[in-house]
């Protein structure tokens, strides 16, 4: 108990500076470079997740009333998969990549060698506090870095659990957890890191990047946005509806960076879609969703107030076609659908991050592409259609971190795909090998021999050398030979 209380003492600038120095010294010993160390740490994470799944479920229940299945599958299982993949592939990832060299550096051989950046800072959010804390840490460790993890104070039970578990299972000379809020984060951000990974919102993302700028620190920002779902007619409506519901309310009750934020569909199709949604929602969560145990609550009263305010706005409350119920004492809001809320209302301009789903109707489904592109680029964009041409048009014209056709959210579980945003939704990407790359410096190594020494390069500069160089750059062996013998045209 005493140990846990100690970790809750705020970290100030001095303590942060000492912490970084300690980790730098640890990194300088070269310990993290070894494959053995990295694999042992990754395996510790696996063991930690396996041994303490129950504790994680309880912490998530305390922080978010997250349904047990969501906790086990979308946090613990996802993390274990990510970790197992890293353990399996690490050796391969660490191997330098040989690259071809051309006549301009002939004779030579070259390779790209991945190396750790050094000491990295991972700042994680409250909505998937277990997964989004440890997933980047996996990448950082796999790449051979020392890591400081700062979990969100808005999910305190998980933050506390992470501090305890990392303390018990991992090499504390190189991997540490710092708990706390704004003050602690600010103190950490003043230090010089070799990389900072931040998952959260754009406002804080800017603060992180500005702090990083002082030290020329590269950043990985996983932010958010309004991920739109375009729904065409002529689809398997039941399947589409289920997938939308699963992606919206089945994932932390809409509090997910890639949750479908709002829907775009034609005026004609909207009634059918609303009916299908109502029908399937009842199947999923029962007649009284506020009683369903399969829905997360809203994380805290701040966000609860924020969300209810979105609904209370003047011309918005009248557009609710389903749900709209909330219970302040339990911080629950039922799945709510709105139809054609005004384009300038808050709910249509801010990232909702909750169980409210506005539907915006358009004349033709293609009109929705322009609407999406007129806003900031989201983290994900979804399209439900059977029309091949529409699919291609969507992929080509809609810019987003990632695009999914005929489903939602599950692209996150594909380790072969980079997960990251663009413009307002973020910079950089991770998952799978992309995590390893995000926390590595890819060092270019060129091996030259003394043997091939072309006098062409050296002063004194002559016309002949220029001719030969031109021929070589042009890649023409024949011209090169001509030039060598002084037989060129110019």
């Amino acid at each position, binding site marked *: 108990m005493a140990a846990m209380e100690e970790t809750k003492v705020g970290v100030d600038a001095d303590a942060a500076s000492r912490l970084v120095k300690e980790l730098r010294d640890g990194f300088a010993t070269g310990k993290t470079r070894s494959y053995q160390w990295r694999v042992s740490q990754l395996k510790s994470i696996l063991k930690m997740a396996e041994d303490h799944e129950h504790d994680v479920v309880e912490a998530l229940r305390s922080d978010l009333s997250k349904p047990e299945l969501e906790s086990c599958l979308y946090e613990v299982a996802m993390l274990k998969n990510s970790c197992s993949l890293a353990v399996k592939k690490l050796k391969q990832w660490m191997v330098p990549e040989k690259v071809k060299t051309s006549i301009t550096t002939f004779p030579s051989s070259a390779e790209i060698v991945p190396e750790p950046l050094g000491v990295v800072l991972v700042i994680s959010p409250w909505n998937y506090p277990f997964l989004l804390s440890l997933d980047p840490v996996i990448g950082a460790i796999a790449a051979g870095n020392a890591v400081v993890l700062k979990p969100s104070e808005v999910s305190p039970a998980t933050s506390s659990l992470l501090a305890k578990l990392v303390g018990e299972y991992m090499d504390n000379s190189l991997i540490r957890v710092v708990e706390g809020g704004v003050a602690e984060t600010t103190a950490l951000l003043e230090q010089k890191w070799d990389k900072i990974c931040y998952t959260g919102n754009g406002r804080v993302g800017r603060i992180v990047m500005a702090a990083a700028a002082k030290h020329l620190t590269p950043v990985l920002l996983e932010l958010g946005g309004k991920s739109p779902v375009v729904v065409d007619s002529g689809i398997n409506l039941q399947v589409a509806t289920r997938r939308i519901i699963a992606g919206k309310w089945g994932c932390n009750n809409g509090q997910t960076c890639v949750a479908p934020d709002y829907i775009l569909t034609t005026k004609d199709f909207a009634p059918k879609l609303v009916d299908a949604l109502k029908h399937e929602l009842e*199947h999923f969560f029962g007649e009284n969703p506020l009683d369903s145990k399969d829905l997360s609550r809203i994380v805290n009263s701040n966000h609860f107030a924020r969300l209810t305010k979105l609904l209370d706005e003047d011309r918005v409350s009248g557009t609710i076609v389903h749900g709209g119920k909330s219970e302040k004492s339990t911080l629950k809001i039922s799945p709510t659908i709105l139809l054609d809320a005004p384009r300038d209302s808050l709910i249509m301009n801010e990232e909702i991050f909750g169980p409210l789903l506005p539907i915006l109707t358009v004349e033709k489904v293609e009109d929705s592409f322009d609407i999406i592109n007129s806003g900031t680029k989201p983290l994900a964009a979804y399209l439900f259609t059977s029309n091949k041409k529409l699919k291609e048009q969507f992929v080509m014209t809609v810019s987003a971190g990632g695009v999914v056709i005929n489903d939602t959210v599950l692209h996150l579980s594909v380790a072969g795909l980079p997960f990251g945003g663009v413009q307002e939704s973020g910079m950089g990407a991770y998952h799978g090998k992309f995590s390893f790359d995000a926390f590595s410096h890819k060092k270019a190594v060129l091996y030259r021999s003394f043997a091939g020494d072309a006098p062409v390069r050296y002063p004194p500069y002559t016309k002949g050398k220029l001719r030969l160089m031109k021929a070589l750059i042009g890649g023409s062996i024949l011209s090169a030979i001509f030039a060598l013998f002084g037989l060129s045209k110019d």
Partner: protein
Amino acid sequence: MESVGDLERDLEGMREYYSQGKTKEASWRKSQLKGLLTLLKEKEEDIFKALKQDLGKHHVEAFRDEIGTLTKSLNNALGSLKEWMSGRKAILPKIAVLSTAEIVPEPLGLVLIFSSWNYPFGLSLEPLIGAIAAGNTVVLKLSELAPACASLLANTIPNFVDNKAVKVFQGGPTVAEQLLQQKWDKIFFTGSARTGRLVLSAAAKHLTPVTLELGGKCPAVVDSLSSSFDRKAAVKRIVVGKYGACAGQACIAIDYILAERKNISTLVEMMKVIIKEMFGGNPIESHSIARIINKQHFLRLKNLLEDPNVKASIVYGGSLDEDHLFIEPTILVDPPLEAAIMTEEIFGPLLPIISLEKIEDSIQFLNSRPKPLAIYCFTKNKSLERRMISETSSGGVVFNDAIIQYAADSLPFGGVGESGVGRYHGKFSFDTFSHEKAITRRSFLTDFWFRYPPWNAHKWQLLECAYNSDYLGLLLVILGLKKPRRGSYQPAYSH
């Protein structure tokens, strides 16, 4: 320079042009790259003249380092564009039947490139090639310190590329600041770390991704070489890697040398011989060494030699011609490590040699200093090679040569830590100006009913098997042959 209002209107126009989709077409990109090739061919003489005027650069050096490498890069981009533009497939787990996943590159939109004065053509056009190949619209801000080159580029580029998509700005810090206040989809900056920080801070306001090509003190670690042939080749490469690279005013020029004490006098003697061979007895007359860009930098370099302990360490050269902004090739042995010449990036034709007891000490020496853009290591010792790679950190490492990595398209060119963020050259240029979009396509046909609430133990089991790619387990669960790991799941009840 136009007013901020004019600038914003121009940029609005460029964004509008971009949204029309022209720059995304492969044919457009190719035509622009071809336009740049034509520019280089037709304006070659003018380019040589401008470089001579701004930097006193010899036209063969200009060809070798700027026009030649740009031509190579353009040909490479034209030949590889189709491949670069096509996406690549991502592997999905087997359970994802009737689904596909791929990664498709798309342009970022409107990008800003800051060029530098030392390779005013190379450092303008090399990033421009990447930005155009990736399908962006571009604003290119040239360095005012190389005015003849800036003027030439500003006047010629609009005649060879689509000037609705590519705009060129001249001017100094005020123009740069105005540009930085706008919102860009990417900023590419070549220059000093101090300005790099300012660029990154400005970019943070708009969450704009940035590539910073900075500098540092690039060391040449020179080991004992038993063969005299090797020694000669090494010294030639060192001499040209310092004095032949814009008189040392290059981010990847050799900044200083680390060598074992016992080898230094031989090294110095050989260097003197080679310097005379390459630049003659009176280097300023050879016109083969660039001059210092301006008075400010000249005085900065002069200052580096003012310290009496530094002056005393000069073993060759050291004469400065302020009227012609010329400094002759200079070698120093063991100036004090705390002197500015050993703590700041030199960026000039002064070459300190630092002596070590054993060559392996170079590793600790390098690790106690900021990470440079390149480490050069002249050695035939495989063990030192391996240690240099695994125990030091730098943008890149070159064995037995210097500068030449700039011409290698297959190697990423960029720094780490103080020497920069991000990389380019070859496909890396294309990538640095692209967003890699992840695309997943699913079919309606395969819908796993166990994805959806209400949850129960059975669904949980199935999902777990699916997550673990446990196909046999999946089958067993469906057949009712697999016992659940957990106790029964409690159905929903109210608190």
